């Protein structure tokens, strides 16, 4: 007695358009955090980072953008996303308050290795967040990534397809 052999042939599929197969993918999104620069003098010094974005996603108004942001801007963005969206927002690299105490042997928060560590953490944070479909709908994310200045008095809103 032979059991009927199951038909395991593949289902019919439409042949793929060659432009789709070999063209640039629709999910191109690259964010780099680089070029830390310390501005100001004395106790009012702070470090800014260059946030460069390249994309072909239609949700972003500019396909290329470059802005400068400081750590407190990132903190602002994280707080806005937590409040406005349902996204579980990843953590930022540490605040390092202990580095701001006096009588340290090193440069504190302006120490090169600390800045590099922070830079990497900020880059990871932005890549995680910017690729999230729900975060992409938040006005605060677009303002952070592509507007010249972060207006902390903005009105939170949702962004639809540009």
């Amino acid at each position: 007695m032979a059991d009927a052999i199951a038909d395991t042939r593949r289902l019919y599929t439409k042949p793929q358009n060659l432009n789709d197969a070999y063209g640039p993918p629709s999910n191109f999104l690259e964010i780099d955090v680089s070029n830390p620069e310390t501005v100001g003098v004395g106790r009012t010094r702070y470090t800014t980072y260059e946030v460069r974005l390249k994309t072909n996603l239609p949700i972003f108004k500019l396909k290329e953008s470059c802005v400068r942001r400081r750590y407190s801007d990132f903190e602002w963005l994280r707080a806005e996303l937590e409040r406005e969206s349902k996204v579980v927002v990843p953590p930022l690299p540490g605040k390092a308050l202990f580095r701001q105490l006096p009588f340290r042997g090193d440069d504190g928060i302006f120490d090169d290795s600390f800045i590099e560590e922070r830079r990497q953490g900020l880059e990871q944070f932005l890549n995680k967040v910017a690729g999230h479909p729900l975060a992409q709908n938040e006005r605060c994310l677009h303002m952070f990534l592509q507007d010249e200045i972060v207006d902390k008095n903005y009105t939170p809103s949702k962004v639809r397809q540009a």
Partner: protein
Amino acid sequence: MSFFSFGQSAEIDVVLNDAETRKKAEHKTEDGKKDKYFLFYDGETVSGKVNVTLKNPGKRLEHHGIKIEFVGQIELYYDRGNHHEFVSLVKDLARPGEITQSQTYDFEFTHVEKPYESYTGQNVKLRYFLRATVIRRLNDITKEMDIVVHTLSTYPELNSSIKMEVGIEDCLHIEFEYNKSKYHLKDVIVGKIYFLLVRIKIKHMEIDIIKRETTGTGPSVYHENDTIAKYEIMDGAPVRGESIPIRLFLAGYDLTPTMRDINKKFSVRYYLNLVLIDEEERRYFKQQEITLWRKGDVVRKSMSHQAAIASQRFEGSAASESALEQAAKEESG
């Protein structure tokens, strides 16, 4: 077993008449081990012998009756005290009295209805068993013998494919297709995932089989989900227009038929869960229920074989011997 060394005690055991020929099936016990039990189907007769063996030959055993029961019951683990019996048959084997030597009693439960399949789950158990009892004043002597019941179905008349377009607006659109909605336990799921829009960075895609056991009714419904299988179907980032094939052989997994609202006490349902995972470990998924059924692998016996069996009642007859020979030739030929 009696702790008193005086008085008489006995051992009782149950033996099926067709123990030599009846198939056994593997079935999970509550602690996860697999054991073999005699396999029965709905409508089959359960017949055999109950052997009562006296421990101290010569001494008599007084009893208030000897009986055998065929029971089908549902046990909810959170409510162990209450067994819900949906089949309960009893045959009295001996009236109250005494036995002075070991005895054997015949029994037959003819064409017993066994409406549900045996099931041992996370929170509920459905089992069938024979229970022989020697009723006594202080403590009964009893022996249980579990059997396993399978429910069989045939190829469904209607078995449409499942085809659906799902996604997240402006981010991800896919069309998934599974060749059937009802699969038997040794079947193959053949399907495909077609990408219509991919604006996220997908790392890989898998298909999971999820078993959901539901117990309780009304406000106290409890679902127990168990991922039976995880099967990666794609590694890497797809683009628009790509089709990913699915071929998932069910025989390799520990599955039962779909059970819907069994005796209004529990359900066991199966779902295919399509999961896409992106570069940041975010998961996008779509669950779809499928119906599983058990295909019988019993050969449809030829008419002459059935006649041969019928004629066996007339033992030693030449007609039955030659009929059996003929049927055997036809089977192998």
